[in-house]
């Protein structure tokens, strides 16, 4: 039975602690800490339904949802693959822009120089894999904890995006994606065998 759970971000906890530590060692401004705290609070203010296992019923790889966000953080594509835990439009938009800011902040907070942002966020009930293209478009997928080959899937989605979205004369850059061919090819790619095939 799907039950509503709060996102419990172990990784996010760690991020907030890092922020505190950095603040104490004067490496970060108070404003950045406030940003992190605001995001932290916002993430906890809405709940995501736990839909572990619902994807399996449909023969899909255990992917819950897929997001594509443009370089300014606007959601341009959202697709749900779980039967339960569907988010409404407002929530998905909020997750997209929150992830955008989180990603940007993580780049700055990273102890490693030249960090390109969070690639994987592991939580109790889901994993979030993110891939950022060179132009700043971010692709991220929310999936079952421990799901394999997600990097390959994201790269493949990026490939589909460059083919069926960017080469389509009727697509306006940075706007929501409404391309039939993209949808068709994406559905094929997300099917389980396809993911296994991609991961060879």
């Amino acid at each position, binding site marked *: 039975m799907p039950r509503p759970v709060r996102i419990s971000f172990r990784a996010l906890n760690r991020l907030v602690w890092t922020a505190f530590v950095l603040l104490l060692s004067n490496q970060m401004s108070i404003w950045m800490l406030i940003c992190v705290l605001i995001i932290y609070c916002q993430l906890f203010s809405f709940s995501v339904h736990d839909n572990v296992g619902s994807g399996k019923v449909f023969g899909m790889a255990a992917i819950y949802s897929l997001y594509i966000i443009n370089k300014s953080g606007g959601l341009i594509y959202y697709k749900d693959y779980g039967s339960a835990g569907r988010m409404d439009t407002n929530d998905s938009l909020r997750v997209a822009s929150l992830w955008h800011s989180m990603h940007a902040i993580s780049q700055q907070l990273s102890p490693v120089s030249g960090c390109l942002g969070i690639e994987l966020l592991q939580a109790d009930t889901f994993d979030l894999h993110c891939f950022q293209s060179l132009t700043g478009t971010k692709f991220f997928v929310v999936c079952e904890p421990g799901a394999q080959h997600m990097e390959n899937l994201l790269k493949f989605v990026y490939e589909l995006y460059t083919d069926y979205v960017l*080469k389509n004369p*009727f697509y306006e850059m940075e706007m929501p994606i409404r391309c039939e061919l993209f949808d068709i090819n994406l559905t094929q790619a997300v099917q389980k065998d396809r993911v296994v095939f991609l991961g060879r």
Partner: protein
Amino acid sequence: MIGVGKVKQYGNVLDKPLNKGKQEVSLSAFAFLFSELVQYNQTQVDNIGELERRLEDAGYAVGARVLELLCHRDKGNRRETRLLGILSFVHSTVWKVLFGKVADSLEKGTEHEDEYMISEKELLVNKFISIPKDMGTFNCGAFVAGIVRGVLDGAGFPAVVTAHFVPMEGQQRPRTTILIKFAEEVLQREARLG
């Protein structure tokens, strides 16, 4: 250098034959160029019919040149004079040079004597293009229709050529049909030739 003695030396650069080079261009490069062509023309028009006409005109110029080139290259400066001859020339020779394959089918219209159809399951120009719902029956194959019209017109077979999406049973995507409607004079001449 290996084989340097075998290379013929040309005194004048103009005497040197052109090297054959690659016969194919990148599909991505073409797709982006075609996309730009459509986008540019879209800024110049205010209705879909006009856009279709402009794409067809762009294709017409290609068709006229392709006919000239292929007649010279493949046919020893001769061209087809019969209706079926020119149609199979378009269906096989022209298609092969432009798209690397023969068109999927060439059929005669069932309702009218003067109509012929060339069908493609997935037209090369439409490979990456999804038509938005609000554009209705618009088909970027209008460009290919223009090429066909250019070839036919140049060969002395004036015709009206249009591109349409035809839904297919059991297929997610419709196929594209290039409908060729020949002018009356062409059919009269054809009847005279017997």
